[in-house]
């Protein structure tokens, strides 16, 4: 009996020793500005990572799931990155904000650590220093250009206003939007920056009205957009102007804040919605969310799905790296995701494809429209913007 116990202990110890620990780490805004999106995103990363361990997705590898708050502060992100890569030896960096990613681009290039940001800012994969940045889904710029294409099909020559966040996150798509509007025969008559403390938008909306604006396209977060929609409703402008927006403007967050003023808002995103329960990815989101006791609001948030996608891509890259779970191995794993080897975890309208030249994962997007109940329903199928590739060729 004693021998059996000793043998079993020895086997257990050997197995434990054979099991490699790899850190899967994320740094983002769990508190501070944009934490409304970041907290759910963090939960998605953490839960998928734990799920991967529970499912033994990487035999012989135990994932050390680290989710760290950077408060939307670039200096904190940099410290986290240095700790993750320097001390925890993480082979892949799951990052967050536009500003911190832009700041870290050069360092990421030097350290050669593949990075998956929550920011879908096209500038992150523009040269220079763009070899190791991978956008999980279509960029904000492509979202906006796709919305412009939709407007052009319905109402050629229409006057459009852009309302953007006063930050690199908000401003970046403006150049591509202007170029696309020119080609599409649309007129961008005004570009306004609106931040998080916009208590009253009457002046801006009245000016849009006097300029004959029929479409208002937002590149912002849900909070400021909700306030614009509520003011537009109060001023009786909701029927006269069509409000639209890129990925971070919409979803549950918007309808929760804007209430019935969000009705008819048109939103561009690559993700499936919570109420599309027939999608395997959404079934997985619900299953994992329930398994780890997340609140209904968190599970319903598109940002929870987004966090899961980022973690799923990282885990898949590790799977493909097999025995070489290093930054170089994961780079190879990521860039092998194309053709018949595309990765399709089911969270997005199309598969995730990367190569050494293609650094946009799920390139397809859909336009969805908010209905009376506050749910977003698809009004287009999965598509890519045709114009975007002309106004912003990559590589």
């Amino acid at each position, binding site marked *: 009996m004693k021998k059996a116990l000793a043998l079993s202990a020895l086997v257990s110890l050997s197995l434990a020793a054979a099991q490699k620990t790899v850190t899967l780490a994320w740094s983002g805004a769990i508190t501070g500005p944009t934490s409304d999106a970041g907290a759910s995103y963090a939960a998605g990363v953490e839960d998928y990572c734990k799920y991967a361990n529970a499912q033994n997705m990487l035999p012989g590898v135990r994932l050390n799931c680290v989710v760290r708050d950077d408060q939307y502060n670039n200096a904190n992100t940099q410290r986290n990155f240095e700790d993750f890569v320097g001390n925890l030896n993480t082979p892949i960096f799951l990052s967050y904000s536009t500003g911190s990613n832009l700041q870290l681009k050069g360092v990421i290039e030097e350290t050669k650590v593949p990075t998956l940001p929550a920011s879908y800012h096209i500038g992150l994969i523009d040269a220079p220093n763009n070899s190791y940045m991978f956008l999980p889904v279509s960029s904000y710029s492509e979202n906006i250009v796709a919305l412009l294409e939709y407007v052009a099909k319905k109402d050629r020559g229409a006057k459009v206003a852009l309302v953007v966040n006063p930050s690199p996150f908000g401003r970046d798509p403006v150049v591509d939007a202007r170029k696309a509007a020119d080609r599409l025969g649309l007129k961008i008559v005004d570009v306004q920056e609106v931040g998080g403390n916009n208590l*009253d938008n*009457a002046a801006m909306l009245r000016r849009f009205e006097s300029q004959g604006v029929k479409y208002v396209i937002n590149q912002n977060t849900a*909070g400021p957009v909700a306030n614009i929609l509520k003011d537009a409703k109060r001023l009786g402008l909701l029927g006269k102007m069509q409000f639209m927006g890129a990925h971070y403007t919409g979803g549950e967050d918007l309808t929760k804040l804007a209430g019935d003023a969000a009705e008819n808002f048109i939103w561009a995103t690559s993700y499936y919605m919570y109420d599309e329960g027939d999608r395997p990815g959404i079934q997985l989101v619900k299953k994992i969310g329930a398994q780890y006791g997340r609140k209904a609001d968190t599970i319903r948030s598109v940002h929870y799905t987004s966090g899961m996608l980022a973690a799923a891509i990282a885990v898949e890259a590790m799977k493909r790296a097999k025995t070489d779970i290093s930054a170089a191995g994961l780079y190879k794993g990521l860039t092998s995701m194309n053709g018949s080897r595309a990765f399709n975890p089911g969270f997005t309208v199309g598969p995730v494809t990367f190569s050494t030249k293609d650094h946009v994962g799920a390139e397809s997007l859909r336009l969805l429209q908010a209905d009376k109940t506050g749910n977003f329903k698809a009004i287009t199928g999965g598509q890519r913007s045709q114009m975007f590739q002309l106004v912003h060729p990559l590589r």
Partner: protein
Amino acid sequence: MDLLPQLLLAGIVIGSIYALAALGFVLIYKSSRVINFAHGQIIATGAFIAFALTQRGLNFWLAGLIAMLATFLLGMLIERVFLRRMVGEPIIAVIMVTIGLSSVIDGLIHLTPYGAGSFSFQTPAVLSGQGIEVFGTPLSRTQIAGVLAALGLLGAFTYFFNKSTLGITMRAVADDQMAAMSVGTSVERVFALAWAAAGLTAAAAGVILGLMSGLTLGGLAGIGLKVFPVVILGGLDSVIGAIVGGMLIGILENLSAGYLDAIVPGGGTREVFPFIVLIAVLLIRPYGLFGTKEIERV
């Protein structure tokens, strides 16, 4: 419809909320000469207490009143635990305490389910109906209620400081603490009451703001900083100054949004304009429009 009356009216609506938020600064400074940099966090605390109570099924109005009472007590507690020890210390030390306090409250709110995320009050039935039109500008019932509540509280505090014995005592303490103590006034009690009253008005401002534009910690706490130009313009120790400063800043913000945003690429001038006013006021009239003129030559 001409744009100007609409901009003026929108400015008054926002300005009255600014004035209410600024009142907390004034109440504390008026009695203790302390500038409370944690005021935005107290505004957020009040709003989230009310929101949490409504989430548990409590009536909105009752939840708002309980939140005001809670922040009244919180203000008193903050004064008792942190500020009372700072009496006689250099002003920079006191300011650092309030800055530290803002981080502590911020962190504590993040430990609650409301630290991250966007939330909105379920609008009470009486406020969700059709609004009214004033000079061709539609105003929602929420906005009207917000303005009335803000003006009501501001009026009550103006009366309190000018007519009530306690209000006059608080002014006396602010004028000369040593003289007030020599006639038997409890300076400590006055300080505690000022912090408590500031807490009460902060919750009122937070609930109104939450009702009008949703609840996010960043947005609510940010108001504390945003109303700083209001108190400087009006005068740090003047309730009337808070009202006039709030209205002026609200109107100037809207006028800049209405007329300057069209010619400034990217617009967003309303975010900057109050701080331009702040700099101008500090250069020309550092004690504000209604503040006590104190000249020190060294």
